[in-house]
């Protein structure tokens, strides 16, 4: 189990690859981001994107799934207060294969909660051409390694 103390600054972790599915792109957009370039393949051709593209939030949600699958059960992370500097750099299209690389750039023990620490993770998301399509800097809360009590 990876606790706060075990997180290595600079170590790069890479996820598996997810293929962006056309039906799922349409379904997510219908529910959460019904702009025409996400929901209407014909109309999307007239947009600046030249065709249907995934909602940026759908891409982000797919990345979250890749990260959870990668780290689930292996890390003592207990949620996230948020993120900074999320940028969508290139459109993501049906059939694109995306994967993410995460690296810890900073870690800070909590002053107020001695059992917790904060880790800043920079996540870069690439497509099948290894083009950077998205990045963000997440803040993740980690449990500190439990202290073994000394016998009395």
């Amino acid at each position: 189990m990876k606790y706060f103390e075990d997180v290595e600054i600079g170590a790069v972790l890479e996820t598996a690859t997810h293929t962006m599915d056309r039906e799922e792109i349409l379904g997510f957009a219908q529910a959460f981001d019904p702009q025409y370039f996400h929901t209407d393949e014909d109309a999307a051709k007239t947009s600046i994107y030249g065709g249907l593209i995934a909602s940026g939030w759908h891409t982000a949600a797919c990345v979250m799934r890749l990260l959870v699958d990668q780290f689930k059960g292996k890390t003592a992370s207990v949620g996230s207060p948020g993120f900074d500097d999320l940028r969508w750099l290139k459109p993501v299209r049906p059939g694109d294969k995306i994967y993410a690389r995460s690296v810890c750039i900073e870690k800070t023990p909590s002053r107020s909660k001695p059992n917790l620490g904060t880790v800043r993770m920079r996540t870069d998301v690439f497509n099948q051409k290894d083009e950077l399509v998205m990045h963000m800097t997440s803040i993740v809360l980690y449990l500190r390694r439990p202290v073994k009590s000394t016998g009395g």
Partner: protein
Amino acid sequence: MKKRYFEDFQLNETITMGPRHVTRDEIIAFATRYDPQPFHLDDAAGRATPFGGLVASGWHTIAMCMRMMVDGWIGQSASMGSPGIDQLRWLKPVRPDDDLTLTMIVRTIVPSKSKPDRGIVKSDYELKNALGEVVMTFSGMGLYGRRPS
């Protein structure tokens, strides 16, 4: 609603959206696909954490906000998408049967230097639950087309 172009935004303009009701079923459905951490899937698992019960994935909360924004004005605008988001913070959990209200305030309006047919509007957002507690804040950018001449 008249179509909103880049020129139609005003500094400090405020738009309020919602309320949007959050159901247990949709929390579990979203988390099952996109954020399958135990406290997003199951009450018992949630009770074992400081959340004290099942809570929505933060990504689901954002997605619900996006829907409110598209219904609120983006769907009737010359939107071309967004370059990104800054300083998003999940401040309080979102729980089953919450009712969420979103407020947007326009902070900067910047024409594109390279492409004269568009510009970027940056706004601050605040999401509240039915108790009036702020559950999420962020700063978001929207790319909008100029009115055709």
